């Protein structure tokens, strides 16, 4: 098998990493220290907005990256595209799990405080859960095929079939379930309920979390390439 060239981790990467770390430190300080308007039910849990929502944006962008690399892998068959599809799916799954946990805890301490409800079958929550099940199946499928080349191809096909069916949930779920999220089911829109000060932290947080995902993804790809070069002969 051809040796893969590991991406050069040059000084530019270190600079970008330093910028992202500083950026996120400021975002987290702002998230916890800045004063926010107290709203009924939400109170201080509204700060979760800075963490919960960016998790979803990050997950969706990594899902997109994974789908694109799966398609590119089928077109080219090159090893690196399969590694990129796999690692972006892995990062997407991590952010998906964190998005679910932050969402469940948020609902538990607000609308469902004092009840035994953990899961509320919200359309977005359900969709995320299904996407995680798909990635579970995707990684499980990968473990059952030994041949590198075949594994990449079959897994890419599964990833793309799944990517073709998931958008249907956007149409189906909101018709059958009630939503807790803003902007759905006559709930007030996002812009109506967020104070300017919150948006000033929220948008940088979105950028910051996506940047962290990119860092993680890039490092995972690098490790995967090095590992592969060491284990293959």
């Amino acid at each position: 098998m051809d040796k893969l060239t590991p991406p050069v981790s040059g000084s530019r990467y270190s600079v970008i990493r330093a910028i992202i770390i500083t950026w996120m430190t400021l975002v987290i300080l702002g998230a916890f220290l800045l004063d926010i308007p107290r709203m009924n039910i939400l109170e201080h849990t509204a700060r979760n907005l800075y963490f919960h929502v960016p998790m979803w944006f990050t997950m969706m962008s990594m899902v997109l990256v994974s789908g694109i690399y799966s398609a590119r892998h089928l077109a080219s068959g090159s090893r690196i595209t399969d590694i990129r599809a796999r690692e972006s799916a892995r990062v997407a799954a991590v952010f998906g799990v964190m998005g679910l946990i932050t969402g469940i805890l948020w609902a538990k301490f607000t609308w469902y405080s004092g009840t035994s409800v953990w899961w509320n079958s919200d359309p977005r929550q359900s969709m995320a859960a299904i996407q995680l099940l798909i990635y579970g199946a995707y990684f499980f499928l990968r473990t059952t095929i030994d041949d590198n080349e075949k594994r990449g191809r079959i897994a890419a096909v599964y990833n793309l079939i799944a990517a073709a069916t998931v958008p249907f949930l956007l149409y189906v779920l909101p018709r059958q379930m009630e939503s807790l999220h803003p902007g759905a089911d006559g709930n007030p829109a996002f812009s109506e309920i967020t104070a300017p000060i919150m948006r000033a932290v929220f948008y940088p947080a979105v950028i910051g979390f996506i940047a962290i995902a990119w860092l993680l993804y890039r490092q995972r790809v690098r490790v995967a390439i090095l590992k592969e070069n060491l284990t293959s002969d």
Partner: protein
Amino acid sequence: MRLHSGRTSWLRATVSVFLKDTRIEWRSRFGINLLVLFVLSSVFILVFALGQDTVERNVIAALYWIVIIFAATSSLGRSFISEEEGGTVLLLQTHVPGSAVFAGKLLFNLVLILIANVLASLAFTVFINATIANWPIFVVIVVLGSSGLAGATTILAAIIARTGNGGSLLPVLLLPILMPLLLSVVHAMIAALEPGSSWNDVGNDIATLVAYAGTVVTASVLLFDFVWKD
């Protein structure tokens, strides 16, 4: 069966694959027996589990489609594994275009799922006292739901035939992908069980089912060669 590569038109190749599977099935009757017994035994589990109380329509609708989906995973998962085991993959690969193999298998699987639906609707009527109030809606959603189900099952059956441990993998891969279909078909099924329901109640669901079946089959035809060819 004679197959002339090049001269065989795509449609004839598809029909040949379908007839070949039907003939093999007719000789062993393995798949159909499995299907009949699976549907009957799962309906009897439901009979005992539900007891003699009247069951709500939405519960019946959900159970009905769960039975159909698991019947499909248990009996259709073998469609491509049997080719691998019989050593006939190479023969099909050289004589028939990949998309024709897929279409033939899809047709065969669709027939099996429709048979499962006929059985399950009889069994649900007789043993669980489910009344199908609106037959036209029921028939339409069964045909559309089965098409989508057959499409997803066929491509995944091709995928699992390429893995190390065969059939056991199918439900894990299939269920998350079927979620949109399951949600719409169960929703429409509740309407079919309800007296006085009209087409307006199921318009959205039928649109979703048509689009779902179309998308899955199109994506599968496009991607099938990557799974099928080495």
